[in-house]
Structure formats: structure tokens, C-alpha cells
């Protein structure tokens, strides 16, 4: 029994899953809204990276300079013009509108890029890195590093900047925040923008790691949600642990039960977590 390889890939994969979950967790924490389009936003990063790679031969990691601002503007506009309106009516219309957005995006990807699997192929995405006698794909290590960078960045953004301060105010007491002259609509739009930026960042690295197609939107939505549900809301450590639990459960399931049931076990873990402890391992019951 050689468990080293599945465990180490599981942990590295978990780092990437945590980045997928970060944006969802942020929106969920600030607006109490499950963004069903989050998976489609993740794949948005992958497809934009693919378009830039095909059109200009731009390296996907370099292209992040273009991708992240585009994603931010898109997220800001979606929240400003669509979700904010629905949000005033209650959480259900807002939930359904994000579902509508995810259908629109998934179908757009299908029209533009065909329903077949694509991947971002670069010279470093296929290289291996040897740790002792074992070899780990280099891209998995990059994923893990990106996870730490993304988490530090979000931490800095939320705790050290004025935007972060206004977001935290809006979470604590929206009415009081309004009285202090914070525009809640603007803060919500910024939040979705930031969430989409992190989603597209995760999307680029996912595209480098795995092949993707328009239907991947839904798979990544479940992974993101699983990370948030396992780790618990609003806790950065929780999101990280959640990602690793999910990553490990998938690679270990693939090792013991075969590749066919890999995602099945991950989904069952999420489902059981939802039923038993929806506030997560580290979460506090509201």
C-alpha cells in the first residue's frame, strides 16, 4: 500500500479547492446569499485564459494581470445591475437570479468554445517535481503556493484596507453602516467583484491542472460549496481545512474505490456535512 502519492496530491489539490471556496465564502458571509453562479465564474477565468492563450499566445499566469481586473468589473456590474435588484425582494429571487446567470454563462461558453473538454497547456503544466523517490506534478505545487498567496491577499484586503473595513461594517450591521455614509449597494458590488476576481484566479490554475468544459461550472460550484460547508463560514482557516478534507476525500476515494466513484464520495461527504453540521467544523451556530 503506497498512500504517499494520494495523500500528497490530496493536500495540494485541497489548496486549490480552498481558493475556489474563498470567493463563495466571502459573498455568503457578506450578503447571506449562495451564489449559484460561482462555478460559472470560476470557469470564466479558465476560458478567458484559454482565449488569451489562443489569440495572443499569452501565458495564463501572466494573463492574470488582464483576467483579474476583467473579472472584477464583470462581478461589480452583475451585482450592481442584476443581483442588487433581486436582493431587495428577498433571498429566493436572488438565489434564482444567480442560477439564471450561471445558465447564461454556461451556454455562452458552449456557443463560443464548444462543449468539448479544453485545457490550458503550457510547458510547466505538464512537468513533474520529484520529492524524494516520488514525483508530484509541478502544477499541484504551484496551486498550493497560490492558495497561500490568495489567502494572505484576502486577509490583507479585509483587515487592512478601507474597502475591507466597509465590507466588515456591512456584515455587522447594514443599517448602521448606511447611517455612517457607506453605500451598501456599492459595498455589495465590490464584494461580488472581489469574489469573482478570486474565482477567476482559481479558474486559471484549475485550467492549468484539469481539463474543463461548460458543465464543469456545476462541479466547481459543488466543490466551492463543499469547502465552505466543511470548513465553516467566515473562517479563513476553516476554508483551508475544508479544501484539504475535500481534496483528500477525493484522492483517497480514487485510490481505494477507483476513479469512477471519486466525485461520488466527495459529494456524499458534502451532503452528510450539510445534514449534520451545516455551520461547518469551525463554525459557530447562529
Amino acid at each position: 500500500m503506497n498512500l504517499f502519492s494520494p495523500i500528497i496530491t490530496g493536500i495540494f489539490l485541497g489548496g486549490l479547492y480552498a481558493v475556489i471556496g474563498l470567493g463563495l465564502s466571502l459573498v455568503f458571509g457578506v450578503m447571506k446569499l449562495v451564489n449559484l453562479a460561482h462555478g460559472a465564474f470560476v470557469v470564466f477565468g479558465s476560458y478567458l485564459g484559454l482565449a488569451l492563450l489562443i489569440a495572443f499566445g499569452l501565458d495564463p499566469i501572466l494573463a492574470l494581470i488582464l483576467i483579474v481586473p476583467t473579472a472584477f468589473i464583470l462581478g461589480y456590474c452583475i451585482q450592481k445591475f442584476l443581483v442588487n435588484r433581486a436582493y431587495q425582494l428577498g433571498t429566493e429571487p436572488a438565489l434564482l437570479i444567480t442560477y439564471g446567470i450561471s445558465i447564461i454563462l454556461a451556454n455562452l461558453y458552449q456557443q463560443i468554445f464548444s462543449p468539448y473538454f479544453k485545457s490550458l497547456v503550457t510547458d510547466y503544466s505538464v512537468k513533474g517535481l520529484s520529492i524524494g523517490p516520488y514525483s508530484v506534478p509541478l502544477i499541484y505545487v504551484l496551486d498550493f503556493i497560490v492558495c497561500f498567496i490568495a489567502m494572505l491577499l484576502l486577509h490583507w484586503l479585509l483587515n487592512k484596507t478601507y474597502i475591507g473595513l466597509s465590507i466588515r461594517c456591512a456584515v455587522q450591521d447594514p443599517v448602521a453602516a448606511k447611517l455612517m455614509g457607506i453605500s451598501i449597494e456599492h459595498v455589495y458590488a465590490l464584494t461580488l467583484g472581489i469574489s469573482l476576481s478570486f474565482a477567476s484566479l482559481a479558474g486559471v490554475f484549475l485550467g492549468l491542472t484539469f481539463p474543463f468544459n461548460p458543465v464543469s461550472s456545476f462541479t466547481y460550484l459543488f466543490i466551492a460549496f463543499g469547502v465552505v460547508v466543511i470548513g465553516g463560514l467566515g473562517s479563513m482557516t476553516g476554508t483551508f481545512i475544508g479544501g484539504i478534507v475535500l481534496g483528500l476525500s477525493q484522492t483517497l476515494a480514487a485510490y481505494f474505490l477507483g476513479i469512477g466513484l471519486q466525485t461520488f464520495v466527495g459529494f456524499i461527504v458534502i451532503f452528510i456535512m450539510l445534514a449534520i453540521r451545516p455551520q461547518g467544523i469551525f463554525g459557530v451556530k447562529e
Partner: protein
Amino acid sequence: MFRLNAEYILLVILTLIMALLPVVGIGWYTLHVLFLFFVYLALANMWNLLAGYSGLVSLGQPAFMGIAGYTLAMLLWFFDTPLYIAIPAACAAATAFAAVLSIPLFRMRGFYFSIGTLLLNEICRVWFNWWRPIPVPGAPVGGGAGFGIRSGLSPISIYYLALAVGIASIILMRFILGSKLGAGLMAIRDNERAAATCGIDIFRCKLYSFLIATFFTGLAACVFYLFQGHIEPTGAFSISWLNVMLMAVIIGGISTEEGPIVGSAIVVLLSQLLPRYAEYSPLILGVLLTLIITFTPPGIIGMMRKTRLYNAMLKYLSKPIT
């Protein structure tokens, strides 16, 4: 409950016209569109019962449809069960599946419930892709992720089945909404705590509506798969079924009785009568859905109820239940 009023006369006349259409020799294409309309109508009505009247935004109906379809396919494939036993058995299997799952699902509240049910589709799809019940000598797993469904029914009798299920779903909605269960459900939807204080058993009401909706969704699925003649996991547990229900209900008007009828007609027309733009129809529906939620959340019927003409027309029918 069943007073003879203009509404029932209208319904009976329309049903008779629909039933006579194949006899007078209408084209196959029109018949196919009508068939889809009735299947979508039953699905939309049941989703409206869940989301519009019970406050259960279930995104997992395709899972129950797939379970019903697979049970039907396997009963016909392995046991050659006659249809009048196989169809109720398939619906019962879906309902039993829903009943078992209601224990974990009803622990989830609000959008946790939505996500939990949405996950069901994926869980079922992955499982049915992996599970191959037909043994193939020499292979590690057998064949048969997909099944043929041999019913021996003519397309016209399947059309009549769809007609019956569609009309039955309209009558069922009226019956439930007029009953004690419907009153309880609407009270829960409007204010759960107040309803509980008035002595309404919240868990039981929601469970009944969930099970009834699942049974009828399964029935509609059986009719559809009898027509399609085969079933496979990717199509059976596909999100596109969810899109149909959601769009029909929201475009037509959620929490209204007429809404799903209008909505299903629009969805069928958009997806079938624009064959040249068939690939764009999900996109068009998605945009329509987003626009409707943003600008007129009550849907088309909700909008029409504000006009004088529609209200004048309603005078001749019985009062709508909201």
C-alpha cells in the same frame, strides 16, 4: 369542492379538444409539441407546489425523475412487468427515495435545502454512471448505464397518457390548494413561526407536499421516458430538466395557479418552435429568466392580474387561490 362552474366547463372542453386532436389527424410535429407541453406542465405544476406554495425551493427534482425513469426501465427490462404495475411502482420508488432522503434534507433550512437537493442530481448521475447492473462476462463492470425502454405503446396512446397527467396535475393543484393541507402550506410559507403557533404541523405539511410533488414528477418522467424509449444517466439527471420547471414557473408566475400553464407554453414554444435557433434556446430562456426576476418578479400572470381586462375575465371564473 367540485362545484360546477365556468372553470371546470372550460377545462373539460379544452381537454376534449386536445383528446380529439389525434383523431382528426393532426400532424405528428404538433402532437409532439403538445406532448412536451403536457409533460412540462405537470413538472412545472409540481415545482410550483414546492417552491411557490410550500417554500421548498427544491433543485433536486431531476434526481427523482431519473430514479422513476430508471425503476421503470429496469422493471420492464428485467421482469417484463406490465405497464399498469410498472408505472405506479416507478413513482412509488421515487417517492420512497424522497421519503428516506427527507430525513437529512428537512434538517437543512432555506438555501441549504436548495444546495442539498441540487447535489442529489450530481450524486445520482455519478452513481448511475458507475453502476452497471447487467453482467458482461470478462469485464470488471457490466454494461447498462443506459437502458432501452420497450413499452409497445403507440405514440398516440403515450400522448393520451401525457394529456391525462397534465390535466390531472391541474386538478390536483386545485384540490390541494383548496384543502386543509394547502391552507397550512400557505400559512407556513407566509410566516413559519406564526403558523406553528396556530397549531400547524410544519414538518408533516412540508413532507406531504414534498412526497406528492415527487410522486407526480415521477409520473411525468415515466410518461416522458416511455416516449423517448431509452434512458441514460447524463440526460436523466440533467440540470436542463430543472431549467424547464424553473423557467416555466417563474416566467409564467410563481405562486399562481395559471402561471405554470402559460410558462410551460412559452418554454415549449421557445424550445421547439424555433428549430433554427435550437442551440440558443437555453440562452434565450436564461436571459428571459434573469430579466423577469429583475424587472417583473411576479411573472407574466402576476403582471396581468394588475390589468383590468384580466380581472374582468376572472369574474366569470372562481377566485384564484394565492
